[in-house]
């Protein structure tokens, strides 16, 4: 079985499990929804961080753009956004019928995808000229700057945040967001698998291995890098839209542009599972979400310490990640067999 088929089999099994999971474990719906979104975050982060060798700490910007854009559009279809946020989204006058709610969500998610991708193109043109640690540090600044900007913008609620439109009473929003997240994870997986099967996939691998060489061979590397980031941002924007609705309340720094938590977690998930592979970030996201929830439940107060210890253990013993470790062992065996 080739790696590609194996990936599809593993992922299909996961999706099949995912489809029935809400009926099996209804109590954990919110955590499972978050898990599918985390898979999207890890997969899209890895497109740059793993497959192209550009470690971005700024991907959270595109998530945050999606968070806000979706919420704003959901509101703006019916009400004045400024007035809505000035009233803190409360009050009985801001009511959304089921039809309005769904229409706002659909439009919001599509717009989020486009806006986030456009933002990636604009930011990428300036930032992707930098390499290595310079790029990483610069993107770290991006996430923080975006949080500060959102925190100072009254129209979207500034530092007091924004409440997401509440679904009508007895609307099955939990299940809706679960299956939306699942669908987004599937689309992201299929799309990125396809991207990696094209010459574009080879080109971003080539940039990871030797960018100067790729340029000397006639590749417009900046254009390739910006496109890759825009592809990431497309899915991140949609993930953000769902994430914001899941959290119900958008704090600019703790939810939308949460660089020290989600912004770092997405990096961690990809590294945990194995950078540069397709299945690695998925494995990483699953392990991360399980341990995170476990630590937060049973080690409350020490959860961040426990998470930190886990990171150290993984980085020391599996620097290539779990899937990377397995792949390296298999590759080493293959080389030994060839030599023998």
């Amino acid at each position, binding site marked *: 079985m080739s790696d590609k088929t194996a990936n599809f089999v593993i992922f299909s099994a996961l999706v099949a499990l995912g489809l029935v999971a809400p009926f099996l474990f209804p109590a954990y719906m919110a955590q499972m929804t978050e898990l599918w979104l985390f898979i999207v975050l890890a997969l899209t982060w890895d497109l740059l961080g793993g497959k192209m060798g550009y470690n971005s700490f700024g991907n959270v910007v595109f998530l945050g753009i999606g968070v806000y854009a979706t919420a704003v559009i959901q509101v703006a279809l019916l009400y004045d956004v400024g007035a809505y946020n000035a009233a803190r989204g409360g009050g009985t006058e801001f009511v959304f019928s089921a039809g309005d709610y769904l229409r706002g969500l659909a439009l919001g998610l599509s717009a989020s995808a486009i806006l986030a991708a456009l933002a990636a193109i604009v930011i990428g043109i300036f930032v992707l000229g930098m390499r290595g640690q310079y790029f990483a540090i610069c993107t770290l600044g991006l996430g923080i700057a975006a949080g500060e900007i959102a925190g100072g913008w009254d129209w979207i609620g500034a530092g007091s945040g924004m409440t997401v439109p509440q679904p009508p009473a007895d609307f099955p929003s939990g299940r809706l967001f679960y299956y939306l997240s699942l669908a987004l994870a599937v689309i992201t997986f299929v799309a990125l698998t396809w991207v990696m099967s094209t010459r574009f996939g080879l080109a971003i691998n*080539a940039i990871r291995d030797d960018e*100067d060489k790729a340029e*000397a061979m*006639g590749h417009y590397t900046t254009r390739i890098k910006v496109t890759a980031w825009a592809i990431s941002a497309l899915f991140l924007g949609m993930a953000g839209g769902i994430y914001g609705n899941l959290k119900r309340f958008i704090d600019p720094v703790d939810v939308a542009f949460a660089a020290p938590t989600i912004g770092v977690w997405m990096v961690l998930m990809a590294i945990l599972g194995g950078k540069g592979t397709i299945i690695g970030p998925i494995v990483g996201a699953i392990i991360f979400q399980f341990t995170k929830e476990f630590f937060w439940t049973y080690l409350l107060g020490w959860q961040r310490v426990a998470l930190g210890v886990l990171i150290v253990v993984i980085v020391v013993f599996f620097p290539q990640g779990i899937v990377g470790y397995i792949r390296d062992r298999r590759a080493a065996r293959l*080389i030994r067999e060839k030599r023998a």
Partner: protein
Amino acid sequence: MTALLEVRNVTKAFGGVIANHDISLEVPKGKIIGLIGPNGSGKTTLFNSIVGYHPIDAGSIRFKSREISQMQVPDIARLGLLRTFQQTRIYGKMTCVQNMLISVSERNSSFVSLFTSQTGKGTKRADELLEFVGLYEKRHLPAGTLSFGQQKLLEFAMALMNDPEMLMLDEPTAGINPTLINGLIDRLKRANADFGITLFVIEHNMRVIMNLAEHIYCLAHGELLAEGEPDEIQNDQRVIDAYLGAH
């Protein structure tokens, strides 16, 4: 016949160090031309200037009668002027075949065409060229696991895959096992004769370059010291002095 590559009065200085001073040379189409000179004489700087790694201070560089001294690296590569590196550069974590496939020329293709199947374009050609340089057996191994000499051969095959009109090789035999050097000379000659690729070669190994090149330029201290047929160069007192350190 006009020259394929024409370098006219090129000067390049790094701060106070003049790496190339007023250098003029030409590479006629279809020939193999050599470039020699002691360490630090400015050979690689000249290569870098030609392929657009840094702007030149004065002079002009024309490829196919077109001024290229203001052009960007990938644009020059797309004109069909390619170079290999002294420190071999290959894509280490990708397999040899993948290295070959991503080296297919982008000259006539749009950006969108990058989103087409990897295998569609030139898998057969990749196999042929890997066979040509003797790496066919290792084609599915990560390029980074090859020996230095094999990586040089792979880099050469990648350049051929790009189907260039002119190939500039920076010390192709450095670090290669002496018994393999003859095979490499033979392959370079065949690339020139069979594939019609004009070669411009920097080389320290005198036996190799005298055997290979039809015309040789010699640099010393950033200036063009001598030029001529291999025999003339070999017996030129200035060249001998430069190599023995009389300057």
